[in-house]
């Protein structure tokens, strides 16, 4: 069915988790059609749902899609998995007012031959949809909305702020490409349709699979929340809170959680803060350099000759620093600050993912607890039933003992034989024809029926009702437990696999960030160095001061021996 299922010894585990009885119930309960609440959609789902979305549940190979994949769901799919390095590019951001009273920005997405236009809210919707379709995968982040503060400061301008749009353009493109490179997400036809742009996003939203998404994905199969044939056992699953403590937590995921928290704190704390501070400083510094460059240029105009051109060149070096710093700033923003922010967002996403898994785990434990409680209850009920039956039996025997009073003393101690003993007793017509499970039941009912006169009938009926209800619940819970175990297993392995993939991606990205930062700084140094070297050459051309050791002066000096004294004295005083 799914690589994660085939990889993991699912079948072996179910044996461990489930009782023999539940496997039988599983067949019974999952065989009938889906719960009545969803039945109305069923006619449309098999044809549309399976045709439009063959990718997720059935496509076999996620690890190396291009190597295995032969059946493409559409041309976008084919393009994405063509085996070559494909890149989705957001070529433009256009201001339009199509289908809207106010203007908005649409982003032109080019993926191969296809071109689509989507606005920010549609990206947001795509991301939310994917997150719901794949609750166990790390869906890459999209750039966050502007803060209310931004709107307050810039008001109407905020929406058209060029820098913000450029930033969104870049980050949205990264988002799309991250999905395109994802071994599973890249196969999602919803994503392909987003790229194709042939149908409007509203249409995609209102057609399967997105229209089939349940309201609570915790109560749907982890591997495919839109599965219309999902077992009704899912409805029996509890809806635990995210903070519910686990009795037997998985150390691996505890570690993951601790690590993610640390990672998030470190990124959003020291890393992002210091980065923002540094960028602010560079930006100020570049402004200062621009000002200084202009000042030096003005300065040079007042001077003359070589000094003037030296100052001018120095000013140009400062100007060059301004230019290169602006460039450095841009590169730092794009290749350091933005990925850093993305990873801060990733950390939040992973936290949510771990919460999902945690909830799934809690579901499993709670179901288990419930089941145990129910079983205990049933045992309790059966015990009292048994006791009651024995009592009745005793009473009945008391009645028969009237015929044969010899055996009266032996029966209370040998209750085990009762079933065998009662087997041949004449059955009474059952007062409760619904229950026809055990052959002994009839007799039991008969006894109770006969006891009717001396005992109140209601406790017995209630007890029997309770027993049957408990059994029903147990069977449902057993089923739910099985499903929950399956889901937990699937979630754990899928999340773990995606975390591993994410970790590799992260290391690759950090590597790229560091390299690009180093290169940006190196280029910055190089440009400035060249500018200053040029300035230095010009400064060197300024004539030296006459007061210096020159050979001819050394030789001449004897001649002016006494004249100097006089020349000073003439200017002494006024």
């Amino acid at each position, binding site marked *: 069915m799914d690589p994660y299922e085939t990889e993991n010894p699912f079948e072996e585990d179910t044996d461990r988790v489930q009782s023999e009885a539940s496997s039988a119930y599983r067949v019974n309960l999952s065989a009938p059609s889906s719960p009545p609440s969803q039945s109305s959609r069923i006619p449309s789902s098999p044809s549309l749902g399976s045709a439009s979305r063959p990718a997720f549940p059935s496509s076999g190979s996620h690890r190396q899609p291009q190597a295995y994949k032969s059946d493409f769901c559409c041309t976008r799919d084919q393009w994405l998995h063509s085996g070559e390095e494909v890149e989705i590019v957001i070529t433009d951001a256009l201001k339009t007012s199509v289908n809207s009273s106010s203007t908005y920005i649409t982003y032109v997405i080019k993926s191969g031959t296809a071109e689509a236009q989507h606005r920010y809210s549609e990206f947001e919707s795509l991301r939310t949809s994917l997150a719901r379709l794949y609750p166990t995968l790390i869906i890459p982040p999209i750039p966050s909305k502007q803060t209310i503060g931004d709107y307050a400061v810039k008001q109407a301008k905020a929406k058209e702020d060029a820098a913000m749009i450029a930033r969104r353009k870049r980050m949205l493109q990264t988002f799309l490409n991250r999905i395109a490179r994802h071994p599973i997400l890249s196969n999602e036809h919803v994503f392909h349709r987003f790229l194709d742009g042939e149908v409007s996003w509203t249409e995609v939203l209102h057609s399967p699979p997105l229209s089939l998404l349940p309201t609570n994905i915790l109560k749907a199969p982890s591997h495919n929340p839109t599965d219309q044939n999902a077992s009704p056992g899912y409805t029996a699953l509890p809806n635990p809170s995210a903070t519910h403590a686990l009795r037997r937590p998985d150390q691996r995921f505890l570690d993951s959680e601790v690590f993610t928290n640390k990672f998030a704190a470190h990124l959003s704390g020291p890393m992002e803060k210091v980065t923002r501070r540094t960028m602010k400083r560079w930006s100020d510094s570049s402004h200062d350099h621009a000002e200084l460059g202009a000042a030096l240029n003005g300065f040079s105009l007042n001077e003359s000759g070589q000094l003037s051109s030296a100052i001018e060149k120095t000013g140009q070096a400062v100007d060059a620093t301004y230019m290169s710093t602006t460039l450095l700033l841009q590169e730092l923003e794009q290749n350091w600050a933005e990925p850093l922010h993305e990873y801060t967002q990733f950390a939040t996403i992973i936290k949510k993912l771990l919460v999902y898994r945690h909830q799934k785990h809690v579901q499993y434990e709670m179901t288990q607890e419930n089941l145990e409680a129910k079983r205990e209850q049933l045992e309790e009920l059966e015990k009292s039933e048994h006791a009651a039956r024995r009592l009745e039996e005793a009473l009945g025997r008391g009645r028969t003992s009237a015929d044969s009073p010899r055996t009266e003393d032996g029966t209370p101690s040998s209750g085990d034989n009762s079933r065998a003993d009662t087997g041949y007793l004449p059955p009474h017509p059952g007062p409760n024809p619904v229950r026809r499970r055990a052959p002994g039941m009839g007799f039991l009912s008969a006894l109770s029926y006969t006891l009717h006169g001396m005992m109140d009938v209601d406790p017995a009926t209630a007890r029997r009702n309770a027993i049957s209800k408990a059994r029903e619940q147990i069977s449902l819970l057993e089923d739910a437990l099985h499903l929950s175990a399956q889901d937990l297993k699937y979630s754990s392995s899928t999340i773990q696999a995606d975390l591993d993939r994410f970790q590799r991606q992260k290391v690759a990205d950090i590597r790229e960030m*560091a390299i690009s930062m180093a290169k940006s700084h190196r280029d910055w140094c190089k440009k400035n160095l060249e500018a200053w070297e040029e300035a230095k050459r010009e400064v060197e051309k300024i004539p030296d001061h006459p007061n210096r050791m020159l050979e001819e002066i*050394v030789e001449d000096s004897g001649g002016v021996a006494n004249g100097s004294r006089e020349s000073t004295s003439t200017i002494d005083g006024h």
Partner: protein
Amino acid sequence: MLGEDDDVFDSVTWESPSAPTYDAGPSAPTGPGFRQSTAESEPGHGPHDPKWEGYLITSVKDPVKELADTKDAYVSYLVSAKTNLPIFSTPNPSARRRFQDFVFLRNHLSKDFPACVVPPLPDKHRLEYVTGDRFSPEFMERRRADLHRFLQRLSRHPTLQRSTLLRAFFESTEWHVTMHQHVAHPPGPEHTTGVIDSISDTLLNAFSRVRKPDERFLAMREGVDKFEEGIVLTERLWSRIRNRTNDLTGDYHDMAVAVQGLGFLESGITDPLNHFSNTLLEFSALLRHTTQTTTDPFLIHLHSLLQYSHANRAVLKLRDQKQMDFEELSDYLSGVTSERDRLAAVISGHAGSTGLGLSSYLKDRVDALRGADDDRSRVEKMRKLDAKIKELQDAVQTAHETSDAFSDETLREQTVFQYAKEAEMKEMLGNLADGQMEFYKAAMDEWDRIIPIIQRIRVDV
């Protein structure tokens, strides 16, 4: 003396035509330039072109705390020079002097050479005196550099470099005696022009302006203004950049720490991230180093040059003063002369009243009313006026000569200052460029070094 000079410089060929670049002289702070090497000997100096009789290369070194454990502790500096000026009795004079001696030197030079731009001394830095920090190595080094620049400026001045006081400053072994002698018998003529002083004091006030401004000096004044403006602006902007760079130093340090923290989290790439963190740290250190070794000295020099320019401006102002002296005296003289002429006209038959306007007429009337209209008093008055006119004419003559001489001197002084300014700007900008180049080169190497280390990280996505 000459022989020694030859010994010292024999091995160096300053004038080798094939290598017109600056040669690292054995001990020359201002090495010979590669283009101006023959400029000095060129004829065709204008009347106001300064002429250097020889060279004087000075240095201030080795600050030492004297009388260390007493309350009279002070710092002495080794001042030394290399020179071929005939006024010096040795080509390598040297002495130890304290700050007070520099103060004395400056004060008396500016008194003796009012037309010369005597460079200013560094501030006394009262705060350091109060806190006792004036013996800290940083303070002593900074002051040493300031004093070095002061002496360098003096020695670059064609007139001041040959002053007896400066010679004594370098050579005298009995500096205190010299100081006393100098105070007792200042060189040059005494201030005997009492008439001018008394008259000009009564006539001049701070707000009076030169009536016939000299185009040359106006241009000069404007040039100085703009130069100072440029310096002030540059200083302000550059210190802002300096502060930003300082902040960046901290930022990169913090970033290094943050990256190191990331390295701790990412156990797989701890090592390369540590390297990267070190690079950030190194970059931060380089920024700080540049600030300390390039930007700060540059700013200090810039400020010092501004003060030097203030001294120059003061001389220009003084020249205006001299011109005003002359102009006011001339006015006064013409006033007195016309008064005498009027009196003479009155004496010779009251003919002048009509020609001399209403005010003179009124004056006559008033004089008549006071009963001072007898000819005797008029003649007496005229004699007095004649004497005054005579005196004034002399004074005007002197003032005129002074003003002209001062103007000439100022013109020459401006050229001298221009030379000094250019030389200092060259040194300043050159050092700045050197420092920047050193920084960028080192930083570039550092970033270049780290790139392959990061690239070695192996990841399969």
